[in-house]
């Protein structure tokens, strides 16, 4: 009963934590998409140096523990770039996004590579430039093929976002930890945090699966092929 009252009492605060977590996740997913997609195209269609640079990037961001990356940027890289004043939220979102881009690029790369070369050949034979062909033929197909795999990035980033606790972003874990410190109620509050993560996880996946259905094309992509 006490716990419930405390949760209700802290509810607006809790909500702000949820909003911050979702903010981290959505900005990171967005940034990851913005960078990951061109990186995938660069890896498939780019020159050797371009592919090499992207390869290094992917290797770097997938090779380090997320917490190490976060500290590296928070204490090192951003201050060195004169961006030491950047708020923790921005740093967290950017690091999650840069790391997400590495993973997303590989999802999109696989999708682009799975498209038969005939699609590009047919597009070029009609007089489309390479860029037009990529935009009008390759990408719309690749996005559909990638979406199921891409959807998994949402729970990944959602769960990863809790590391931003370490640099003091007021996201869900940070908020609940403060509640624990002040109320000395531990288990129920962390259980509440866990419950909220699970709900966010489930809800987001629901939305994404709905989207998969909406853009499905008969005999194409995740379905029959």
């Amino acid at each position, binding site marked *: 009963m006490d716990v419930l009252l405390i949760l209700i009492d802290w509810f607006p605060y809790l909500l702000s934590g949820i909003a911050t977590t979702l903010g981290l996740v959505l900005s990171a997913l967005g940034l990851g998409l913005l960078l990951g997609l061109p990186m995938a195209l660069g890896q498939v269609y780019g020159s050797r140096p371009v592919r090499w640079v992207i390869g290094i990037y992917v290797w770097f961001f997938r090779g380090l523990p997320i917490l190490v990356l976060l500290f590296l940027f928070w204490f090192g890289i951003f201050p060195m770039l004169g961006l030491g004043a950047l708020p923790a939220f921005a740093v967290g979102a950017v690091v999650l996004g840069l790391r997400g881009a590495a993973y997303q690029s590989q999802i999109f790369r696989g999708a682009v590579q799975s498209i038969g070369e005939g699609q590009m050949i047919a597009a070029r034979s009609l*007089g489309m430039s390479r860029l037009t062909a990529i935009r009008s033929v390759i990408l719309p*197909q690749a996005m559909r093929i990638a979406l199921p795999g891409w959807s998994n990035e949402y729970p990944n980033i959602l769960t990863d976002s809790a590391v931003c606790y370490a640099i003091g972003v007021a996201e869900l874990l940070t908020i609940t930890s403060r509640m624990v410190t002040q109320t000395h109620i531990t288990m129920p509050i962390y259980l509440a945090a866990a419950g909220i993560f699970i709900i966010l996880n489930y809800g987001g996946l629901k939305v994404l699966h709905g989207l998969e259905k909406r853009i499905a094309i008969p005999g194409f992509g995740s379905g029959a092929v």
Partner: protein
Amino acid sequence: MNNDIVLRVEDIHKSFGDNEVLRGVSFDVRRGETKVFIGPSGTGKSTLLRCINQLTPPDRGRVWLDGEEVTNSGARINYFRQKIGMVFQNFFLFDHLTALKNVELALLKVRGMGKAEAREKALNELRQVGMEDWADHYPAELSGGQAQRVSIARALAMDPDVILFDEPTSALDPELTREVLEVMKKLAGEGMTMLVVTHEMGFACSVANEVLFMENGVVAEQGTPDQLLHDPQYTRMKDFIGRIDSRLGD
């Protein structure tokens, strides 16, 4: 058929590594003419067609369309490719688009045509190939013959000067082969200029103005269907046709 030359192919050479695939192929195509290419597989027929529209740039030799050089044309190649349609053995329809949108796409993105106009033209091309009732179906919902007819409509939509067909019926059952050949026959009758790689000798004999027999990267023999049927000098071509006929007879 008038006599002006719409496509000139001049001494085309192409190697892949040390595999010398085309070793000097030349011919002229007059407007409205249908040329059929036959020959064993691996002799460079597909490579030849791709050298014409520069999907595979030739090592040597030149291609001219309507008096303009297609080879070494830089970015203008995208203009020439509109004027040189291509139809593939495996159709290569855009899998994420309906039949109508397949035909519309290049009108919108390459020609810069408005939506309404593109739609009307695309529907018209689908009508040409008897596919207007299937306009809203996706490639996966079409039979091979239907898909190939849509791909012909897609090429037609660019108002090409010539269409290259690379074994357009080789992936199809006899039944479906017939419906595609009929469309091609109709196009030939309407004066479309066509280069057709095929093993369909019936089509070659009834439609072609000239049959070219390719072997080892060169045109080994060429003549009218009548000549190749009745003139004893076309021995290699006859041998080859005998071989595909007996294979079909199995």
